[in-house]
């Protein structure tokens, strides 16, 4: 665009038609990813009657907060969110500490044993003990059932994420490190004072990848956590969507003028509440996406 002498080739009508089709295809796919969310958000603010009468709407005729009031009154979703925030926060701290401290030595060319330890990581990516031995270790040997440690420890280092950090460390210019060493800094000080501050972008993006994993994780929580006071939001959501008939029978709640327990709206509102925290961090992750998915970076 800046180049004023761009050569303009006239498009043939057929080619212009192809261009239009391309826009329609891309736009259509983008809409298809967005529509379910629009439907759910709009429905969560609607009355039950409107939900049964109108198939699709973006703006409900009557705005109703009944569903949200119900959610916050019964407290399951709130409890789930609080627990999930806790699990995610502590989990990410553990992930980042272990990943960064493993990544740093592996990124130093003068670290003896580098190949050995790197291979130790690569092997875990190619071959695993599988679910049952891991489950037995966590549940029967370490006795972590009903403890959040069962959600934090088994996946404490994701090898892909660790290698992203390692490759970033490797790419940092070595002059700064050498200067610090001249000033008498040891490896620990160099890591904390030089390397970590320089690596903020990659650390931020990997931390966000870990955060998304923790927030979205369902299966481990289902396997290891049975204490209902420790339920995370995904467990609560699954129960409300698939297993509940409880909502309709709950009589302790005053449904107001509409008189109907908004079962469908409650499901939608719970989905919204479980989605919002992820959508809030989305704009921050977006900048860093590319680094995270560059699988080519796995190459030593």
């Amino acid at each position, binding site marked *: 665009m800046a180049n004023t002498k761009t050569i303009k080739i006239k498009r043939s009508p057929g080619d212009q038609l192809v261009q239009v089709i391309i826009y329609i295809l891309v736009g259509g*796919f983008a809409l298809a990813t967005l529509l379910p969310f629009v439907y759910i958000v709009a429905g969560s603010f609607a009355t039950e009657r409107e939900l049964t009468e109108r*198939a699709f709407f973006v703006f409900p005729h009557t705005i109703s907060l009944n569903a949200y009031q119900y959610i916050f009154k019964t407290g399951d979703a709130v409890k789930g969110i609080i627990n999930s925030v806790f699990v995610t926060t502590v989990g990410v701290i553990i992930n980042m500490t272990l990943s960064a401290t493993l990544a740093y*030595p592996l990124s130093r060319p003068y670290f*003896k044993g580098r190949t050995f330890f790197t291979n130790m990581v690569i092997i875990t990516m190619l071959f695993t003990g599988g679910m049952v*031995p891991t489950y*037995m270790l966590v549940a029967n040997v370490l006795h972590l059932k009903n403890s959040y440690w069962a959600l934090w420890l088994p996946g*404490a280092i994701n090898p892909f994420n660790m290698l992203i950090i390692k490759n970033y460390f490797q790419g940092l210019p070595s002059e700064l490190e050498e200067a610090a060493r001249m000033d008498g800094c040891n490896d620990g000080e160099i890591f904390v004072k030089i390397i970590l501050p320089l690596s903020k972008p990659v650390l931020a993006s990997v931390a966000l990848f870990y955060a998304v994993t923790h927030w979205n994780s369902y299966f481990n929580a289902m396997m290891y956590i049975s204490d209902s006071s420790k339920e995370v939001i995904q467990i609560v959501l699954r129960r409300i969507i698939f297993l509940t008939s409880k909502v309709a029978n709950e009589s302790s709640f005053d449904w107001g003028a509409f008189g109907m327990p908004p079962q469908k709206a409650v499901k939608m509102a719970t989905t919204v509440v479980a989605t919002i925290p992820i959508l809030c961090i989305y704009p921050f992750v977006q900048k860093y996406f590319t680094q995270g*998915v560059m699988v080519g970076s796995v*190459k030593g």
Partner: protein
Amino acid sequence: MSQKAERFVPQKRAGSLKQAYRSHKWLYLMIIPGVIYLLVFHYLPMGGLIMAFQDFSPYNGDTMLGAFFHSPFVGLAVFKKFFTGPDFIRILTNTLSISIASLIFYFPAPILLALLLNEIKNMAFKKAAQTMVYIPHFISMVIVAALTAQLFSTTDGLVYHWLVGIFGKSHAPDIMSNPKLFVPMIVGQNMWKETGYGTIIFLAALSGVDVQLYEAAEVDGANRWQKMWHITLPAIRSTIVIMLILKVGTILNTGYEQIFLMQNSMNRAVSDVFDTYIYTKGVVNGNYSMATAAGMFKSIVCMIMVLGANKLAKLFGESGFY
């Protein structure tokens, strides 16, 4: 200070580990937690694979670890029982149906979308579309399952409602319970969730293409397809190969979370895959040896597929995965 002194000491053997430790003590201290993690949560479970060769029962010892030493070894009997048992063929068929369908439909989808996005010259439109299609990647499987259930519910689902309008009441597909539609549903969910995000890696490769190549081709009279065939596709070929290797390696890995969430009594015959079988057999029913054998089979096949695909890629002159 000792570091400085060391530089002037003539080194007898450069490879001396003791010396490496002395000059970089911190690096060795730092690596300890990570190595302990790898040993405990990755290598110790690999040792647990020994159960696949035992008639393992946790009651054979006072503790779980003790049970390993007191459970009798049975050689390959557990594997034999697994391969000849009634479940093997069924879960293998189900797993392969899902992964082959996703190789055919789900794998090329991000490549196609990336090629389409690459053709879009309106930057604002492109940016907006990209922002939208990336979102589902960050949504949990539970929410995807919840959205599916709500949109395709036969009582009040929006999409089901539309489908009734198109196909009529009796022919509208009930994807939640029709076993025939289980595989399309799983693949469709994955396509909805990951196609957009999958484009990133291809778009990144495309951003490295010199614009002058396209301009030169235009001057030479190349049309859209010729440019795509001769410039765009070669630029992402090695990325496609790497992604294909990774995909092939997961041929028996359908992921348990999604299948588990979408499984119900109506579709169980087609929805039981290796991952759900291992979970049910091992974790729920406590048949540790059998589940471990199934897991080990899966893990070995996975490794062979990755290494094989990698070798094949190198044979064809691509750079491969590592």
